């Protein structure tokens, strides 16, 4: 996509400037359809939900865009809502921790297999990763149902039926099941890139196997752990489908609570305020991840790309590579 340079044949800053202006225009033209789409269907909705969070709910359940107030934000302080947020945070944390504990040895095993075995195992991880999430939650629902196969099996073995569905345990199992691969993949990437001679060096320097792991392997794969934690925590905190299918009334989480405000409860301003809160929380989590990830091996992937005309103006350091 080179700029059409038809400037006069004398070299000079003016010609260079004209080429830069032409390139800027070309870039803007290329970006504008997508940018416009995002503006209308993402930025404006984002603004609207923020506006709604300061609106008034009328007695009929409609939303009046007047009488701006912070009632909805104040309502977040109610015991019920604080309880819901706390429960969501707790379940999301529990899910994240379980995913690390389950996923780390799993990823370690895969990453240390010979190359051809590793490729096959990775495909086996990718399949659930890409598989329809709803179907996977349904599979858990089906398996754990009080008249489902698991229960039937336990009954036939003489342990009696079990009632696990609609409990926080079921929700946790469902979330770990849903998001485990989100943890395994970044862990795998970090472990696969691991320079094992470093562990060997640690062993050579009198570290035991366990010490070498804690002092060398684990710190070097930290960026993978952090990335995985964010990838698991963020969707579990805002999860709506999993608790809705596997949880009961006692496991009302913030995602379902927001949905409820826009449906049966018809309190859009409160739902909007909770959404804003959720978005801010997610952005903070992601920003924290990016900060801790930079400098580490995969977070700090160099952004400077190969040199090319036009970018040199803004990136002098990479421009000259004689």
């Amino acid at each position, binding site marked *: 996509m*080179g700029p*059409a*340079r038809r*400037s*006069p*044949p*004398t*070299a*000079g*800053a003016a*010609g*260079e400037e004209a*080429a830069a202006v032409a390139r800027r225009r070309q870039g803007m033209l290329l970006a504008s359809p997508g940018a416009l789409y995002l503006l209308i269907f993402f930025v404006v909705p984002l603004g609207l939900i923020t506006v709604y969070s300061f609106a008034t709910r009328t007695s009929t359940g409609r939303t009046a865009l007047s009488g701006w107030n912070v009632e909805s934000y104040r309502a977040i302080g109610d015991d019920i809502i604080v309880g819901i947020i706390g429960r969501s945070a707790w379940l999301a944390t529990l899910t994240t921790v379980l995913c690390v504990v389950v996923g780390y040895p799993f990823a370690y095993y895969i990453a240390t297999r010979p190359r051809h075995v590793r490729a096959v195992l990775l495909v086996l991880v990718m399949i659930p990763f890409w598989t329809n999430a709803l179907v996977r939650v349904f599979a858990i629902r089906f398996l754990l149902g009080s008249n489902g196969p698991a229960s039937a099996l336990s009954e036939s073995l003489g342990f009696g039926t079990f009632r696990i569905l609609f409990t926080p345990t079921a929700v946790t199992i469902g979330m770990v099941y849903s998001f485990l691969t989100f943890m395994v993949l970044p862990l795998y990437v970090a472990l696969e890139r691991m320079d094992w001679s470093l562990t060997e060096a640690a062993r050579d320097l009198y570290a035991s196997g366990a010490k070498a792991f804690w002092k060398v392997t684990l710190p070097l794969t930290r960026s993978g752990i952090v990335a995985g934690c964010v990838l698991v925590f963020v969707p579990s905190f805002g999860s709506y489908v999993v608790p809705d299918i596997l949880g009961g009334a006692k496991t009302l989480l913030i995602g379902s609570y927001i949905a409820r405000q826009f449906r049966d409860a018809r309190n859009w301003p409160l739902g909007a305020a909770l959404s804003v809160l959720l978005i801010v929380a997610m952005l903070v989590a992601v920003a924290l991840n990016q900060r801790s990830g930079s400098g580490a091996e995969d977070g700090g992937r160099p952004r400077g790309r190969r040199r090319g*005309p036009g970018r*040199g*103006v*803004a*990136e*002098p*350091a990479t*421009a*000259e*590579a*004689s």
Partner: protein
Amino acid sequence: MTEAVAAVEIEGVTKRFGEVVAVDDIDLAIGDGEFFALLGPSGCGKTTTLRMIAGLDLPTEGRLRIFGEEVGMAPPDRRPVNTVFQAYALFPHMTVRQNIEFGLRMRGIKGPELGRRVAEATGMVRLAGMEERRPDQLSGGQQQRVALARALVNQPKVLLLDEPLGALDLKLRQEMQQELKALQREVGITFVFVTHDQEEALAMSERIGVMSEGRLLQVGTPREIYDRPASRFVADFIGRTNILEASVESAGTVRLDSGALIDAEASTPEGSRVAVSLRPERVRLQPRGTAAAEGASLDGEVRDITYLGHAVVYEVAAGPVSVEVRVEGEVGEPFAAGDEVTVAWDRGAAAVVAD
């Protein structure tokens, strides 16, 4: 180079990237049919100079002519030059043939003409039979030939080569040096190549331009550059040398800071500060007291000896300075560490370099 029309003529060219001056007011004329090397450490501006000739970067100031035609701001597709890129930049999604055809097709050449020229180019770089392979199925040397053929098939007036041998291993590199020289003689066009390898520049080119920090320090034949460096940087960058601080005593003598007075031609006025460049292989080592009548000498003591197989390098402490002496083709080691020696050289072996 001014009598005929120069192949490439660069006049007062400067290239700035924001605040950084990559190329600083360069004047250079490269003759028709010349094999010219731009030599310098990384970051010296040599690649940027080459890219400006190619049209991949535009000069901020100055004029650039190719065979008399102003091309300063012309896009690369309108210049009679082609480039062999550093890592070859072969299109990975195309076969060897498609790579080589690319430039011709872009200019609308097809049919028998296309086939004839591609066959000619593949023959020239000895790639016949490999046309249907993809770049990733070729060795480094073969990729290099494809890159050459892809450029030469367009019959450019000037061929630009950016570190053409940098990606090859030593043995292959030496082979390709000879081959490139032969190829240049065969096609008879101007080759301008960029390298940071001074041996490569000396071995291959008819003339060398030495660059540092955006400036063109010296242009000359390999012999001129090696024997008569114009500056301390050039003396130090090309080959190994001993740099001795000195000042001009008279037109024919220079006094080293260590006190010794030596015979050497200096072009700067009396009393000016200079440096004396003494190539390690141009000096002799003698037992103390047997100094030659002709030339100059320094007394010292052997400090260290390094055996290199084909040569022996002596480090001689001559007062406060240390001088490296390289002795080749000698059987045994006539001197040992601690020996009192005299470092002697012929008049003309020492080059006086302005500060």
